[in-house]
């Protein structure tokens, strides 16, 4: 059987996001430096948490599903500040 998986970029381009200028989730990179598990990196279904070489985390809120996985799996108090985007913004599902 042949198998060709689509790129993650292509996967995310299938979803509509109405990005607001305010980041509705912020990540405190300093707090992440001490974290050994970095559960957010593997669990975030939009792959928004990227580990960087200094041990911290790079985060971009723009393609967020607003699901809550990151703050639920995070074990570092205060690392993730989580709110919903402004009304009318953020993810817009169509065929879910």
């Amino acid at each position, binding site marked *: 059987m042949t198998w060709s998986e689509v790129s993650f970029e292509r996967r995310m381009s299938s979803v509509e996001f109405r990005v607001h200028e305010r980041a509705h989730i912020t990540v405190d990179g300093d707090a992440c430096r001490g974290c050994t598990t970095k559960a957010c990196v593997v669990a975030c279904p939009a*792959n928004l948490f990227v580990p960087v070489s200094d041990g911290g985390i790079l985060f971009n809120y723009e393609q967020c599903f607003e699901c809550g996985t990151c703050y639920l799996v995070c074990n570092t108090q205060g690392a993730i500040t989580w709110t*919903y985007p402004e009304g*009318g913004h953020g993810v817009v599902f169509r065929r879910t």
Partner: protein
Amino acid sequence: MPDVDAIVVGAGPAGSCAALTLARAGRSVVLVERGPFPGAKNMYGGVVYPRVLDDLLPSWWEEAPVQRWVTRRQTMVMTGTQALTIDYRSEAWGEAPYNGATAYRPDWDAWLAGKAEAEGAQLLCSTTVTGLLRDGDRVVGVRTDRPDGELTASVVIACDGVNSFLAKEAGLYGPVDPANYTLGVKETLALPKEVIDERFGVRGRHGVDIEILGCTQGIPGGGFVYTNLDTIAVGLVLKLPALAAQRRRPEELVGLLKQHPAIAPLVEGGEIKEWSAHVIPEGGYDMVPTLSGDGILVAGDAAALCLAAGIWLEGVNFAMGSGIAAGQAAATALRRNDTSAAGLAGYRARLEGNFVLRDHRKLRAAPHLVLSDRVQQQYPGLVCGIAERVFQVDNPRPKPGLRRIVRSEARRAGVRLRDLARDAWTGGRTFG
């Protein structure tokens, strides 16, 4: 005087049913939705069981935005190379009043919210509720992100979904345990309708729902494949702490399911139309928060009313059922001019009296059993191993007896018969 009788936060199935019920009782209701339209933020594992609407919206099936009526329901147990399927088909489920339906949530939720609007509820989209307005311990309204966005009401019904920051702010939740939550991820794949009909063995508006155990690489959870009209959906439900404790990302895990020999022929060539994710409250009865407080009720996912009981995987019906009950309880409290915690306590009694909490209480052990290590990691191999031995013809060796097969396959799967008996007993007590 408050601005309105009731504010319902979240125009999902719970919120729209609550708003519809209150509006029909003659109450002024604002239904606040943070998405640009109802359903924009919602995603699920695919099947709505709408019979709970029979009283509220008679003949709902004549207008509900359904993709397909589920007439073929399968439960599949698999290992990496094997699969055993129970395949049930019913023509009756393809006729009114039907049983389950697949639908796109943006369609379904918008339709239901429209019904609430038609009864007089005021739908306010693109509006995020940022917090509760309090007078002492009493909830008296909500703060929104609109300019001058404070809105007061005699009662607030929080239908703000699984993360329910409102229920938490109102102090209705205890400490949040990630082990009570799963992540649902899904691919919506486009295929021509005739191809879907052919592959899934259905015609017209009939459709298939397949629920799968043993496809999550040891992470407690399950999988699903179901048919829409000209798309199919394939996805997984994954217990959060276990997902976070291993290396494979959600889309890789879905990729492995799509490559399985029992699934690949169904999904092959499907072009990805949408990738989506949502968190699900799967802790069952024991994680249900306090359901009412002074001036506030909680319904739907916000009240953790999702049923993850293995053979039954339901949520939208529990959302609608709890939303209706919340609307009724609020209407009664408003009529008596008492929306205090005591005045709203009738809500829980209503849920205890109908399927919402009765099913949850009866099945309170089910989520733990279904997501247990043995059910997740050992039993799929055991079940498939037994099936393989039963159906395999090993001539010239004579057929082994069933008891011998079970015993040797249990040994191979690392299952102790004592544990199997105990789980069978728990299962019997839970589901019986």
